[in-house]
């Protein structure tokens, strides 16, 4: 295991932020800490980096107890949401910082930095200052800077959170490819489930300072441990007292076995998919169908249909209040 976190508790004042958190991060994996804001995911990452001290519990990095180790002795790379670029240093000197601190020979530093700048496609920018770079370029520089010291683990705190949607998507794909090239154990924090599913091998869902579920993207999406995880990982709707993914619902104009009767209230065409909004037993629900299927059914508002979860679809029975 690259990182082992055991029973970590952390409070800020009287507010508990992490409660008995234990996670394992496999060597060479790409793990996402996913959860809503204030769920404790950034704090957990900072505890691993040594930027915060846990109140109780231990952190082991590559088998070594690092709980009381200062951040500079943990050999972790950390990338901040707002880049934390050294504003008074050029891109080259930013990336070289960790190597200069380690007093490596000048030639070696030059070679390594240029390699890394090539890796993050910033070789043309070596002599620029961070203020002359775009947000995406700054974050790539920060990544190169963190990788320069050959960290045992790379920690990214909402790395794409401050970027606009287009750049965020590009960088996501790029991070995945970079990880496949470099293979350094990576943990990143995000509140965007799509980002976590697309990039990570393993997702740790954190809410209210507790681990809700750990698993591969497919596992947490298809077999959520509880309604919270199911709601957080993707769209859900409620039919017959169960939480179901809207694309896992069969809809037909004839009554079917195990089906629930529903009234169509609106049909919304969203390009390739169609959203059918329903009234089921006095509650709002919706079903996602393909355009072809919707055309075939020719639904209009007011139609009475029968809906049921598709065979094999995972649904969660909600506790009746």
């Amino acid at each position: 295991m690259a990182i082992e976190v055991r029973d970590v508790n952390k409070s800020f004042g009287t507010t508990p932020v992490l409660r008995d958190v234990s996670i394992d991060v496999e060597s060479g994996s790409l793990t996402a800490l996913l959860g809503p804001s204030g769920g404790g995911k950034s704090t957990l990452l900072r505890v691993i980096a040594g930027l915060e001290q846990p109140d109780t519990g231990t952190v082991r990095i590559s088998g070594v107890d690092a709980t009381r180790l200062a951040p500079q002795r943990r050999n972790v790379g950390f990338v901040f949401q707002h880049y934390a670029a050294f504003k008074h240093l050029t891109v080259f000197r930013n990336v070289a910082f960790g190597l200069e601190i380690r007093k490596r020979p000048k030639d070696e530093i030059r070679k390594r930095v240029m390699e890394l700048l090539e890796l993050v496609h910033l070789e043309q920018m070596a002599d620029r200052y961070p203020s002359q770079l775009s947000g995406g370029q700054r974050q790539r520089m920060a990544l190169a800077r963190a990788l320069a010291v050959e960290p045992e683990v790379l920690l990214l705190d909402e790395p794409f959170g401050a970027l606009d949607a287009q750049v965020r998507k590009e960088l996501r794909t790029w991070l995945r490819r970079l990880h496949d090239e470099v293979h350094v154990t990576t943990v990143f924090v995000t509140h965007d489930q799509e980002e976590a599913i697309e990039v990570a091998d393993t997702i740790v869902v954190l809410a209210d300072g507790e681990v809700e579920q750990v698993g591969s993207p497919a596992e947490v999406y298809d077999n959520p441990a509880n309604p919270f995880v199911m709601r957080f990982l993707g769209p859900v709707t409620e039919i017959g007292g169960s939480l179901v993914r809207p694309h896992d619902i069969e809809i037909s104009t004839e009554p079917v076995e195990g089906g629930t009767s529903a009234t169509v209230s609106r049909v919304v065409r969203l390009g390739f998919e169609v959203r059918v909004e329903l009234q089921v037993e006095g509650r709002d629900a919706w079903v996602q169908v393909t355009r072809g299927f919707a055309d075939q059914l020719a639904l209009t508002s007011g139609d009475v249909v029968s809906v049921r979860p598709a065979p094999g679809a995972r649904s969660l029975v909600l506790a009746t209040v």
Partner: protein
Amino acid sequence: MAKYGLRTIAVLYLFFLLVLPVGLIIWRTFGDGLGPFVEALTSASAVHAFQVTLTVALWAVAANTVFGVGTAVLLVRHRFPGKRLLNALIDLPMAVSPVVVGLALILVYGRFAPVGGLLESWGVQVIFSTPGMVLATVFVALPLVVRAVVPVLEELGDDQEQAAHTLGASRLQAFIRITLPGIRWALAYGVVLCLARSLGEYGAVAVVSGRLVDQTQTLTLFVEERFQNFDQPAAFAAATALALIAVITLLLTKLLRPKG
């Protein structure tokens, strides 16, 4: 019309308050040409006063720079009991009259006071000597560096320092390589302000120095003493020199400010 009225009042106000007095000093100084000015400033007493002023100011600036940066880091980056008290104490020298500062220092460091007596027995004379004048100057210029650095340090945040730590830098390395360059303009601004205040200090230094001519006489004390002794050319020449230094520091602060 109201606009012009206000302008006229503002200009007249500044004219009688600032332009006329300073202008007259310069007029009187250079009234008989450059010769008397140079002569007055190169007299043994004047040169000595220059030296004393510089010595005191440089020590005071050095002490306030170290203390100022240290305190600013403490106030912005650390949490500790008594922080608000420290924060309030920093501004105290601004509120206390320099004469009171001088008297208070004599009470502690005078020859017949406990601390002063002890130092005296070790051969260190504080009052009526350079150390006392440095102390007085440090005191009156205390908040200037702290107050210049604190807002910039706050704005800078600690992200860069934390990044430096994760890259292997110790606290000292992070401070020297990251924090110091980040606050350099604000620090320079504070140092220049502190220098200006130190060069121009009169009240506290007058009390603790004993005004010993050719010994503990600074440039401001020299101006006063020459004026009292009806040596107006020397008084005006030294005053003009002080005003010139002030103008230069003012220009320096203007240069440094936008970057801070």
